[in-house]
């Protein structure tokens, strides 16, 4: 709202206007201006970010050849600055309800622009910083525009908008809450430090996640529906490698302390992330870790060939750099008592480090140990000696695989793995199973341990076929075929049968499975100053889930310590995920871009713990990132935020709902253009040099995208252009027998402009009838003929494309004996017709108050002979092409008719009100 036309109303009460004008094309602007001039208060609702409709996008207008911009912009500026008119752009009317007394109640939703309009100066810095490219609807999709953009140079208001179609599926899927699309976009721009910084906004574990995350983002990647997903995880590893590998890193700044202290028990992904987030907000944070080194499962559970220790050190270095203190080898048992040690709040994030037992005979024999112990010993540098030994690993999960592959690296003579689940059902990821097999591990899937045998040390295991792992209720309840048995010789057995939380000593409430009881949303325990996060609450999960939990805990602890309500709805924004199908539909075609091959180097008998996966080169990173489809449009990379000089970008902006009471309604919703690909025989969308009339208008406009008329396939200046009239009009095959009225004239106009811009070009128009009806129109048509445009009466039946991208038209040459003739052109313009704008009737709902449409779905006029523009609903009028195809002067006249009647409606209401007031007084 800019001008204050609305009447003052009580807080929350609906706004009051004399008239609601829906749409701000030429018909809507004319309606609003005339009503405003008469003194009525007007509310204009425009769905786009700028007023102006289609007219402002045109090159020149027939028959005067006035520049469309030059004659539109004064109307646009006048509309927005008129003292009696309020304009809401980027807004839609949700519904209009009849109040029963000739007035209406309108509900309007203004989409968030994510820009503080009052502060935005229209400087376009955000647009230039944004690296997302989506088809530019204001240039008829011929070029791309940014996610942060100003619709077009003459936009009114000239304010930026950030186009967010939703959260991109990769970002939405990330349990950690990392802006995956954002850092991919930053990599695409070569902004690796900024990409690193964006991940740091969520978690300090950039390098660890870049290696050991299972990357659910990639499973959701829309590119996966095409050739294969982006290497999103490896891009994160790339930015971490690049950052940590840089000489002379600028140390992270230590935030100012706020004087409050938080203890974090456990230094795994949840604890480290929470500590990082809290420390960044000024809390004094101390982490207590019972193990000799920090990192939790990252350090103790994940083998170095997947996650080297120095990467964990680098990541933890981020946390300590901003002042977090970590005390290792310090086990805390009495949690609530930490308060007495001066901590204002405590976070328990101790994970699940207790192994589950198999409970089979012989489990107590020597040589049998848990995978957790085994892996931790390897990682901490004192591995169990398995060299030359026969190793049996029990379990089908990630931990079992890690243990088996580690044993292989330690020189085991053989490694057998027994898994209750069949291969496809194993909880380990498929690629891990494949890699394990590649490294020579023998997998016995679908088998369970019956018992171990041996003297003092284990010698072999008897196994039996497992017929079913889970009961009907989904709980773990294996069943076996006792008759199918086998024996595996083994010297060492490593059991990975599950992990439990070790919480007995904490003095906090627990679940039967020993996980801590904390509120699902706030993570607060029954002891108010104690919060719990990560696997100790959820049971064993993935790193990214623990990170997400840690971040949530930090958010809640901050609220708690500030004495605020723990409102979970404020944690992360509520924008929904974008629909992948919408993304794929956004463009007719996407270039094929091959996915990056895996760089893992596998050996059949690995001997060391070197990383199996190689680093990404910069070229690979760029090519990988450049495949992104920018699903959510805005990538949330925050490049715009960095550059905005007015600091006016706000990603938390929500849509606004506005209620208004209006005395009358003028529908000026315009028309839509016929989708040219609905005439497949003309090849639009397949043949690059077949374009629509609107596209040609853009090529000719003063703000034209290429500053020249060129054909799209190769940028050649066309010298032989064909026009196909009546595309989608007067055509029963597309269910539109109507004539669209404007196409003849806009084509004739373009003919003249082309002949002016390209004096050597031939222009041929294939037409049925040239309908130049209107003042000066036929003379204008004759002028085009006189300038040399060639008019051929004939309907084109089809087009084929030559190797050079030229187009061969087949048509019936009506004036020459109706022979079937072919002609070759280097560019074809389809003079597409008009269609009704959909969705207008829906504004009014069904039943008594329904808006009547005509047989062709235009807004119906109940008495076009005497009251043009009047609809079936009293007080509701239609202006311009919403009632049927109209050119600009006809739209202006029609708007004038609608306004005269809307004003008469308002005057009648005024008289009635005055009469009523008189009676009452």
């Amino acid at each position: 709202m800019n001008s204050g036309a609305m009447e003052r109303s009580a807080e929350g009460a609906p706004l009051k206007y004399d008239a609601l004008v829906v749409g701000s094309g030429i018909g809507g602007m004319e309606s609003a201006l005339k009503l405003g001039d008469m003194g009525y208060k007007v509310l204009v609702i425009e769905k786009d970010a700028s007023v102006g409709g289609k007219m402002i996008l045109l090159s020149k207008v027939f028959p005067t050849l006035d520049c469309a911009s030059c004659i539109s912009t004064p109307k646009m500026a006048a509309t927005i600055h008129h003292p009696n008119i309020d304009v809401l752009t980027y807004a839609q009317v949700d519904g209009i309800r009849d109040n029963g007394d000739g007035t209406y109640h309108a509900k309007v939703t203004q989409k968030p622009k994510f820009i503080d309009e009052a502060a935005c100066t229209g400087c376009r810095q955000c647009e230039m910083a944004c690296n997302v490219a989506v088809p530019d609807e204001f240039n008829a999709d011929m070029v791309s525009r940014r996610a942060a953009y100003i619709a077009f140079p003459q936009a009114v208001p000239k304010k930026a908008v950030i186009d967010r179609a939703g959260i991109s599926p990769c970002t939405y899927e990330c349990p950690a809450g990392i802006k995956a699309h954002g850092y991919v976009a930053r990599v695409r721009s070569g902004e690796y430090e900024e990409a690193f910084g964006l991940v740091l906004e969520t978690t300090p574990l950039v390098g660890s996640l870049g290696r050991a995350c299972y990357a659910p983002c990639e499973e959701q990647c829309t590119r996966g529906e095409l050739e294969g997903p982006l290497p999103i995880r490896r891009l994160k590893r790339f930015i971490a490698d690049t950052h940590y590998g840089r000489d002379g890193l600028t140390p992270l700044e230590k935030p100012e302390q706020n004087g409050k202290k938080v203890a974090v028990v456990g230094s795994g992904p949840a604890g480290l992330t929470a500590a990082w987030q809290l420390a960044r907000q000024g809390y004094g944070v101390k982490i207590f870790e019972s193990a000799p080194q920090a990192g939790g499962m990252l350090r103790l559970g994940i083998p170095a060939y997947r996650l080297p220790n120095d990467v964990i050190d680098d990541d933890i270095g981020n946390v300590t750099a901003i002042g977090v203190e970590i005390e290792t080898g310090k086990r805390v048992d009495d949690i609530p008592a930490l308060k007495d040690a001066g901590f204002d709040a405590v976070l328990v994030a101790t994970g699940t480090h207790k192994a589950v037992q198999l409970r089979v005979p012989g489990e107590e024999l020597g040589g049998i140990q848990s995978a957790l112990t085994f892996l931790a010993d390897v990682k901490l540098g004192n591995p169990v000696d398995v060299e030359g030994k026969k190793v049996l690993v029990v379990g089908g999960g990630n931990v079992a695989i890690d243990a088996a592959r580690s044993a292989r690296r330690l020189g085991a003579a053989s490694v057998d793995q027994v898994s209750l689940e069949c291969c496809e059902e194993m909880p380990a990821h498929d690629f891990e199973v494949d890699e394990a097999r590649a490294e020579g591990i023998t997998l016995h899937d679908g088998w369970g341990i019956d018992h171990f045998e041996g003297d003092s040390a284990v010698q072999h295991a008897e196994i039996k076929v497992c017929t079913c792992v889970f009961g009907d209720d989904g709980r773990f309840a294996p069943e076996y075929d006792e008759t199918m048995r086998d024996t595996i010789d083994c010297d060492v057995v490593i059991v990975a049968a599950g992990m439990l939380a070790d919480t007995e000593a904490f003095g906090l409430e627990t679940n039967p499975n020993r996980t801590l009881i904390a509120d699902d949303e706030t993570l607060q325990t029954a002891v108010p100053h104690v919060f719990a996060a990560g696997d100790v609450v959820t049971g064993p999960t993935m790193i990214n889930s623990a990170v997400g939990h840690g971040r949530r805990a930090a958010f809640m602890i901050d609220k708690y310590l500030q004495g605020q309500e723990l409102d979970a709805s404020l944690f992360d924004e509520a924008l929904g995920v974008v629909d992948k199908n919408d993304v794929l539909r956004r463009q007719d075609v996407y270039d094929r871009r091959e996915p990056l091959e895996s760089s893992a180097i596998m050996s059949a008998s690995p001997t060391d713990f070197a990383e199996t996966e190689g680093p990404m080169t910069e070229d690979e990173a760029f090519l990988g990132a450049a495949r992104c489809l920018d699903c959510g449009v805005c990538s949330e990379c925050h490049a715009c935020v960095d550059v905005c000089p007015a600091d006016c970008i706000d990603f938390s902006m929500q849509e606004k709902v506005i209620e208004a009471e209006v005395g009358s309604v003028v529908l000026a919703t315009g028309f839509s253009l016929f989708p040219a690909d609905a005439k497949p025989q003309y090849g639009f969308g397949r043949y690059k040099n077949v374009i629509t009339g609107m596209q040609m208008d853009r090529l000719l406009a003063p703000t034209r995208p290429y500053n020249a008329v060129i054909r799209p396939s190769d940028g050649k200046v066309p010298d032989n252009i064909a026009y196909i009239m009546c595309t989608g009009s007067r055509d029963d095959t597309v269910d539109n027998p109507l004539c669209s009225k404007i196409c003849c004239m806009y084509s004739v106009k373009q003919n003249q402009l082309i002949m002016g811009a390209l004096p050597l070009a031939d222009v041929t128009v294939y037409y049925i009838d040239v309908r130049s009806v209107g003042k000066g129109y036929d003379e204008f048509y004759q002028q085009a003929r006189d300038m040399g445009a060639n008019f051929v009466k004939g309907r084109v039946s089809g087009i084929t494309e030559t190797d050079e991208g030229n187009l061969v038209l087949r048509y019936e040459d009506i004036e020459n004996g109706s022979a079937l003739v072919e002609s070759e052109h280097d560019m074809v313009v389809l003079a597409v017709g008009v269609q009704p704008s959909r969705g207008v009737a829906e504004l009014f709902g069904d039943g008594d108050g329904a808006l009547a449409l005509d047989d062709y779905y235009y807004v119906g006029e109940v008495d076009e002979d005497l009251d043009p523009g009047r609809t079936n609903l009293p007080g509701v009028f239609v202006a311009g092409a919403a009632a049927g195809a109209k050119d600009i002067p006809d739209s202006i006249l029609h708007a004038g008719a609608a306004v005269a009647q809307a004003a008469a409606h308002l005057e009648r209401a005024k008289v009635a009100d005055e009469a009523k007031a008189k009676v009452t007084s």
Partner: protein
Amino acid sequence: MTGRKIGVYVCQCGGNIGDYVDVDKVVEDIKGDDDVIVARSAMFTCSDATQQEIVQDAQEQGLDALVVASCSPKLHTMTFRDVAKRAGMNPFQYTQVNVREQCSWTHTDDKTGATEKATRLVRAGINRTRLTEPLEPIVVETTPKSLVVGGGIAGLRAALGLAELGLTVFLVEKDAKLGGRVAGYGAMFPNDRKGSDLVATLEEKVRANPAITVFTNAELMAKGGSFGNNQVTIAIHGDQLETIQLDVGSIVVATGFDDYEPAAGEFGYGLDGVVTLPEFKKMVDEAPGLLQYQGRPVKTVAYIYCVGSRQDESLEGAHTYCSRYCCTSAVHTAIEAQKLAGDIRQYHLYRDMRTYGKYELLWNASREKGSLYLRVPDDEPPAVEKLSSGGLKVTTKDLLTGGEEIAIPADLVVLVTGMVPRENADLVSVLKLPVGIDGFYNEIHPKLRPVETIVDGVLICGACQAPKTSSEAVASGLAATTQSGAMLKRGFAELDPMVAIVDNDACTWCGKCLEACPYDALEQVEVDGKQVAQVIRTACKGCGGCVPVCPTDAIDLQGYTDAQIRAMIDGLMEVSCS
């Protein structure tokens, strides 16, 4: 130096100016001129963003006068006056310099020359601006009354619309009856409603509305006054001529059209059985059941389209325009004829079938009902001759069958005649109506201001502006209603203060200025015992016609004083382009 603080903005207008004028160089050239505080170029000066920038500059730099060099003042004077106002300047200390129509577009072959000319034009504008004085608009109260001239369907609907807005309306009709041409029509396209019924509906409402006074047999004889307050004289012809004076705020002209009257022999016009479309339509409307012509049943009809329309421009007095309504009207009349009893064969000889928009459905329907369409070459019109048997024969080439020569024997030949402008020299002279090259009245802008004329308060609607269908005429009548409402509903109007001003000391009242004034905007008054000229500010249009004829240089034009003109000439002559 006058101490003015002038902001100068030179527009690229996309490429309209920038492609042919080196705008940055123009800015560079005038940047150091006296009193120029800000000088910038802009991609679109009229865009909201640049407007904001001007406002911001004005506020930050304390600008008090503005120059924009862009397009024609006709387009954007008001835009930038408004900007000046928003920026806290006096809107009349704004000068629009035209470097597009009068520079870039006319010198597309000479960028250097165009750039130098642009600099000179801008400098002239700066010089004029330097000598501007703040002016205030002339505020006049407007009369909430409208005069509608013409009682056809457009005039009737406009009168009703105006009354519904709360205005007092006077409707003047030359004829004895209201209703105009539409009153004589039976079923009309596209809704098959009778013209007579439509008009009767409107007339009933008009007669019943107490705010509307109808004068039939009446004419507008004279108009005086100024914007928003006109005194009109109406002559009512009755037993004796009566004239009355009325005060009105706006005048809506809805005087309609004439049917084209073919010349004798034109497509056989004058032969028995050759009729015009209006004549034929009347026959169909009034047919007793069977279509008859002079007592004989009509079995075969041949229509010849574009009679009196789309004529070759080489003909003297040619009507080169398309009459818009006739294709659809003929098609519709053919459908109506088909509905009558008896077999009828109908041949349509057309050039382009212009059943635009949803009227296409009528054309489809007529073909389904048996009408045959033949496309005649633009340059080989059909010929009509009388056969010795008494019937008619039309010969034509049909392009749809490969240019085959076809002879059609017909009982009746219908010349599908178009609309021509109505002869109305008296009204044109009384209202100073602008008449276009085609003879119809001209609007200010055919695209955006189709019902306004260059004469303040005089609006045009219906077919007097251009050929229209009945419902289009009604829509334009309502648009004129709206425009009147926009002018009069507020109760006052602000007029441009760039009007003539008299120096009473120098004036000797010779009357020469009054002779030169086309607007009767000067009168003789006595001031301090001296006879001097006085400007009627609300009538003066600021044309400046009086200024050069004054022998004592006692009269000047505010906003374009002699001193300003001289300064502008100096600016044009100055050669200091770097």
